[in-house]
């Protein structure tokens, strides 16, 4: 899994919904095929405002004859993502990656449950794709809970529909699907999934993950992808840590970029 820094070319960059963009970046073919959950650090070469690169999950990967391409699904929240949103086709971006570890797809579990909040769909979508490619899993065995504040913030639905037949959409205001928090929607169904037969993959805002942690109460195998502010993205600055229980159950600070971004939910120590 070698990583390096590459000049990518923006092949497309579309506002698919208000404030949500889908960017396709063409990369040299030696860019390593990413695993689901991995991310890249992206920046505009030579521009120091904003200063740090931004971590964005890899949403898709395709290999062409002489190059490859990744897609990034992102939400404009500040200066960095705003600048990304302004890039036109043909612009160059600097991409470092693929970075971080991945969701583990080797569990032999009957039920596969995804729980995504908002933009958290990005890594989970790539994961669902990877699982679909595995012979042992069928789209029928996978259930996807997708939540967002409003219908406008539900992105990536169409692609997901092709990967996953059991799909529950919820919004905080009921403007699409159920009117419920995604964790509540899952909780209603929880009886369907016995802890020993189930693996849960989650990604979303901290509040969602925390509430999920309460609901699962340590009984389920749950892998969750976390976000923290990052500087290096490769484990060198020790800036992006979260508190987790280490092997001996003692608290330790682990780097989201290098030790994560995917963690066992049970290990995370909430303040």
């Amino acid at each position: 899994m070698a990583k390096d820094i590459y000049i990518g070319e923006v092949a497309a960059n579309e506002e698919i919904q208000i404030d949500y963009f889908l960017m396709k970046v063409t990369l040299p073919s030696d860019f390593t095929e990413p695993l689901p959950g991995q991310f890249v650090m992206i920046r505009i070469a030579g521009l120091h405002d904003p200063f740090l690169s931004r971590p964005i999950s890899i949403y898709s990967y395709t290999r062409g004859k002489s190059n490859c391409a990744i897609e990034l699904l992102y939400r404009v929240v500040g200066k960095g993502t705003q600048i990304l949103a302004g890039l036109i086709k043909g612009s160059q971006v600097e991409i470092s990656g693929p970075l971080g570890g991945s969701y583990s797809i080797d569990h032999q579990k009957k039920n596969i449950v995804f729980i995504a909040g908002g933009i958290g769909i990005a890594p989970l979508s790539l994961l669902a794709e990877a699982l679909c490619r595995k012979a042992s899993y069928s789209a029928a065995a996978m259930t996807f809970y997708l939540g967002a504040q409003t219908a406008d913030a539900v992105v990536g639905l169409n692609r997901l529909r092709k990967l996953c037949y059991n799909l529950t959409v919820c919004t905080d205001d009921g403007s699409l699907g159920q009117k419920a928090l995604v964790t509540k929607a899952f909780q209603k169904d929880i009886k369907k999934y016995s802890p020993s037969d189930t693996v849960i993959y989650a990604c979303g805002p901290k509040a969602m993950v925390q509430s999920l942690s309460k609901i699962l109460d340590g009984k389920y195998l749950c892998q969750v992808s976390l976000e923290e502010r990052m500087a290096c993205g490769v484990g060198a600055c020790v800036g992006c840590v979260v508190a987790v229980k280490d092997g001996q159950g003692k608290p330790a600070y682990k780097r989201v970029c290098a030790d994560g971004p995917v963690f066992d939910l049970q290990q995370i120590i909430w303040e």
Partner: protein
Amino acid sequence: MSVEIGGLKLKNPVMTASGTFGYGEEYADYVDLNQLGAIVVKGLSLKPRLGNPPPRIMETAGGMLNAVGLQNVGVDVFIKEKLPFLRQYDVAVIANIYGESTLEYSQVAKKLSQAEGVHALEVNVSCPNVKKGGLSFGSDPKAAAEVTRRVKAETHLPVIVKLTPNVTDIAAIAQSVEEAGADAVSLINTLTGMAIDLKTRTPHLKNITGGLSGPAIKPVALRMVWQVAQRVAIPVIGIGGIMTVEDALEFMIAGAKAVQIGTANFINPHATIEIIDGIRHYLQNNKIKNINDIVGTLRT
């Protein structure tokens, strides 16, 4: 391209700055470590340190704040688990050390001096993140000299003392550690800074304050290197906001015999190699045979 720092010969004057290059392995995919002048590893303490709670970093204009709080594996684990990796490479390894007391400094120094594959010690008397009663060792000439002496007494390795910029007269501290036997000084460490989250009215860093690094601090670093280089005879290693070969050469012209690349690694993991190549080209283009011939050549 080679330079000598307190008897240690380096292939070239470009090192990584402590805390910004992990233990080397983190960047091994990006950088051929054999090409580096030296690797300065993350600051080591006697015992492993948990470090500060997050958030630990925050972006600022042209720079970043960090309050990692010297999280590290401790000197023993470093020697057992990290050094063997570095020994595979033909590169000078400089151990950056930190202590909460002069005793701890000397203990860490001693352990590292007995380990195979450590080529010099860099003594961090300047870390602004970990509070020790009041101000840091590095802000008092006497305390800085005392640490220097204690470390020197325990080691045969070249001792580089790394200075803090959060002082009124950095050249006075440099002179003091030179008198105490330091083989070189490196500067600057980070400037203490702060950022506030308006929404919550809390500091962006859990530690409240943190160290400012990156190009934002380069003018201050360059000024201090210039001031110190005029007042000490030992080699000066320039650090602070170096992003490009031009930046590195500015430090050398101001009087630095070598430079360290810190935050730039985060922005451009190839920065060190590009700077080394850039210096080579600069020397060729300007027909300069010996790199030392540009050190301290500022015309004022």
